[in-house]
């Protein structure tokens, strides 16, 4: 292939997808950006006014839900990792002929619709139900206490609903690992534990980073779990944006708050990636060959 054609290949590969994203994401975002600097109401009409105070308000008024969202999403991501990594490991290394079946089992609950699953959880976690009674007798839940309408229920809900987002990428990268690498480690007198920590885990890191990002990022903006499983003081920033947009119909404020949320998430993600040393995941590494 001629050199010039080779240089054009990535653009052909990228072309359709990126075009789709530009047309249907970048452009609407531009509109939102303009809207975030408007003043006015629906009745009086919106006027572009370089209204930076929208952003100022967003940053100052909503700190509590912001912090709460990051806390809930972070906790849920950690728990999802603790549950999801061993699960992905088991599927990749011990799954054998059941591998694909187990993967499907992980994703299958998604086919029953969010609302029905959440109602089922409400039934399961009901104050007088089996789960809460057992936890009360063991002492984890105070007598007369409850799980629903607390932070725990919201975090549990987020974890449950985003678990496949953690498992699938981790599985994809674990499955990729060449078993001969692990065998080589063992041949060099590594114990199974050492082999795991020094060979398997580092090789699966791209999957872990992908999984945590895919779980954390959407979880921060989630509002459904907080809405159904939480009380009013468990509400997240997604609920606030929902309220601003639909109930208060304050579109500029909603748009400004959304941009602030997106910016904060992006900053956190960049910091995390640098920390995890996985610039590779963001495509920052130099490409070999």
């Amino acid at each position: 292939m001629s050199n010039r054609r080779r240089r054009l290949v990535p653009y052909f590969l990228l072309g359709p997808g990126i075009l789709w994203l530009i047309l249907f994401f970048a452009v609407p975002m531009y509109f939102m950006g303009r809207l975030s600097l408007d003043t006015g109401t629906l009745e009086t009409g919106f006027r572009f006014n370089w209204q930076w105070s929208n952003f100022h308000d967003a940053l100052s008024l909503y700190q509590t839900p912001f912090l709460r969202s990051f806390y809930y999403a972070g906790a849920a991501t950690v728990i999802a990792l603790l549950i999801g990594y061993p699960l992905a490991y088991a599927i990749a290394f011990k799954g054998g002929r059941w591998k694909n079946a187990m993967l499907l089992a992980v994703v299958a609950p998604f086919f029953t619709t969010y609302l029905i699953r959440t109602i089922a959880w409400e039934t399961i976690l009901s104050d007088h139900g089996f789960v809460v009674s057992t936890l009360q007798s063991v002492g984890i839940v105070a007598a007369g206490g409850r799980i629903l309408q607390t932070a725990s229920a919201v975090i549990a809900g987020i974890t449950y609903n985003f678990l496949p987002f953690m498992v699938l990428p981790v599985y994809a990268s674990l499955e990729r690992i060449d078993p001969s690498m692990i065998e080589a480690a063992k041949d060099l007198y590594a114990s199974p534990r050492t082999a795991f920590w020094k060979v398997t885990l580092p090789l699966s890191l791209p999957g872990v980073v992908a999984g945590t990002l895919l779980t954390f990022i959407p979880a921060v903006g989630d509002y459904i779990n907080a809405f159904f499983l939480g009380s009013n003081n468990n509400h997240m920033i997604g609920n606030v944006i929902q309220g601003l947009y639909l109930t208060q119909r304050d579109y500029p404020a909603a748009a400004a708050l959304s941009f602030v949320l997106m910016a904060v998430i992006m900053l956190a993600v960049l910091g995390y990636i640098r920390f995890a040393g996985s610039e590779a995941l963001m495509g920052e590494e130099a490409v070999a060959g």
Partner: protein
Amino acid sequence: MEASAITRTVLPSAPARAWRWTREHGPNIFAALAIAYLLIPIVVIFAFSFNNPAGKYNYTWVGFTLSHWGNVFGISELNDALLTSLKLAVLATVISTALGTLIAIALVRHQFFGRRTANFLIVVPMATPEVVMGASLLSMFLIYGLALGFLTLLIAHVMFCISFVVVVVRSRLIGFDRSLEEAAQDLGANPLTTFMKVTLPLLLPGIAAAALLAFALSIDDFVVSNFNSGTTVTFPLFIFGAAQRGIPVEVNCVAIILFSVTLVAMGATVLQQRRAEALAATRPQEA
């Protein structure tokens, strides 16, 4: 003398045996528990599909009946919504997986101008709150003069699926062993053949995982769909609507049927694996 020395073996101590047993079977047990945890709500949904409430609410156990199962497809709006959702999910999955895989390959394998920006453009949609994405798309569709309906839904669904596909496929591409591809090229294959016969098959598990995720995202989406569906009703939209007055028991039945479809798929993959193994076993052993 030598014989007995050779045949004498040292048995590992009991704790070491227990530890080894845990190490062997631990992951499997954990996996079983984790999958059980994932399926608990499904059991509840299944149980309540046999409920027989007198009123419209299905929250408390009243009595056992099979009548709702007999009437599973008796609510026409439910059936229409279900078909719409399935069609939408299949199309959205195919398109977004194709586009997303190509992007992932370009991003990982090639160095080119605009890489960072493309990366950025992939990740930002995941960080956008659904309300904002839905509402901004709606405004834009109106400005472009597109009639709201199945097409706008499809566009929206593909849009939010692409990012997820890219991230999943990319994590599989990183650390991909190029030596197999190099071997193929050494044997005279051109880049396209190498891609089709070596890269793609090896990439397939990652692509399949991404497609699965995309399908699940599409079939479960509510917020973005709500804004951009016009008068088309998808399954989640129907259920959220029905929840206002009481979700009919038939919805539980349909949910279980959908879930069972994946069970059938699971069974199919196990059978297929078994057949592949049987086939491999009959091949002559390498000398």
